[in-house]
């Protein structure tokens, strides 16, 4: 197993796990969004790793275009979701008292 694939895949798995943990465990809405970004980043990494091609004799290697295309679209997916999340978080911040989950809940209870 080449170093490249070990690095790529281990990094992807680690980042995915980190992102999942952040999304689940963190109360702060923006931290949650960062966790989302991590999840998506690990997907991008996997796609990029997939686009590798064996070096041709003249040394010039061209990437496999399909995973690259997937990566581009996936980036759009992840970033749109995250930006909309930011919108919502700001709106919540402007209307609610806090961006902490439980504080919002408490406030709802009071109001």
């Amino acid at each position, binding site marked *: 197993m080449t170093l*490249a694939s070990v690095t790529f895949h281990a990094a992807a798995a680690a980042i995915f796990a980190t992102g999942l943990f952040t999304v689940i465990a963190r109360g*702060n809405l923006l931290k949650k969004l960062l966790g989302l970004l991590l999840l998506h980043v690990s997907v991008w990494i996997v796609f990029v790793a997939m686009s590798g091609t064996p070096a041709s004799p003249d040394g010039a290697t061209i990437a496999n275009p399909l995973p690259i295309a997937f990566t581009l679209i996936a980036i759009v997916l992840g970033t749109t979701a995250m930006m909309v999340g930011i919108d919502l978080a700001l709106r919540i911040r402007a209307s609610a008292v806090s961006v902490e989950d439980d504080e919002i809940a408490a406030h709802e209870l009071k109001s």
Partner: protein
Amino acid sequence: MRSVSAPAIWRAGVLTRVREKVPFRPPLTALALSLAVGALLAVGLFDLPEVGAAGSPALEHVAPRYLNDARIETGATNATAAVVGAYRGIDSLLATVLVGVAVAVGGLVAVPVVAPAALRSRRRSESSVAAPRFWHRLEPWRDRVDAVLAGAAPTKLARFLLVLAFPLLSLLAVVAAWSHVDGAGGALAAGAIAAAGLVALATATRLSLGGSAMLRAVAGSSVLFALAVAHAPLMEGAGLLDFAGFGEDFADGQRLGIRLLTTGLAFAIIAWLAGHLVTIEQKSRP
């Protein structure tokens, strides 16, 4: 775009930041769950074919056509552009629509202006929760960085840097766009970088860029443009996204179609990101 989303989230953090609570007990279930998923994922990923290994299915099945025939079939010099624009053109079209939806959502939940001062006072009133001591030591620095980034009191240095950033970033964008003229990736990168430059400029010189409404309109029209490009072939009886009829010969038409489509996507992204960031930027003005 990653290059933009990171500062965006930092900015949002500046606006909305209350120090995150220290969880009372370590969230063990979450930890176990994420570790389990990560381990499972690792098992699966290590079972995948080697990176760049010859004969992996990803290279065997459809990739050869993209690699070898794209230039002839689509006239695109860049295989990725051919895939994004021609073979899987519907994907970029749908991505454009997705950006449009994001724009609409952003318009629906427009943030009412709240001055950072008010925010900070609110924050002080809230910051009852004890934070780790380490952060206490960093406190003054954090406030200073906040002040700069929130545009509350941009220091001369910050202004200079930001003003300097704009031409550099736009130059970078031009280079990125030019480097592979057909490259959809190039278009995306150019869009992202240009958006970053716009934001830098807006931050430095309280320039409003016509507000977010105008940019939203631009984004919407570019979405509509991309859709129109997709529908255009119906005029001459071809199928949707079948750009062969655009030019005098097959490849020429395809190339034109790809460029139009990706341009629509890129412009949608530029306008959307810029509008988004400028909105946040304006909110952060005292």
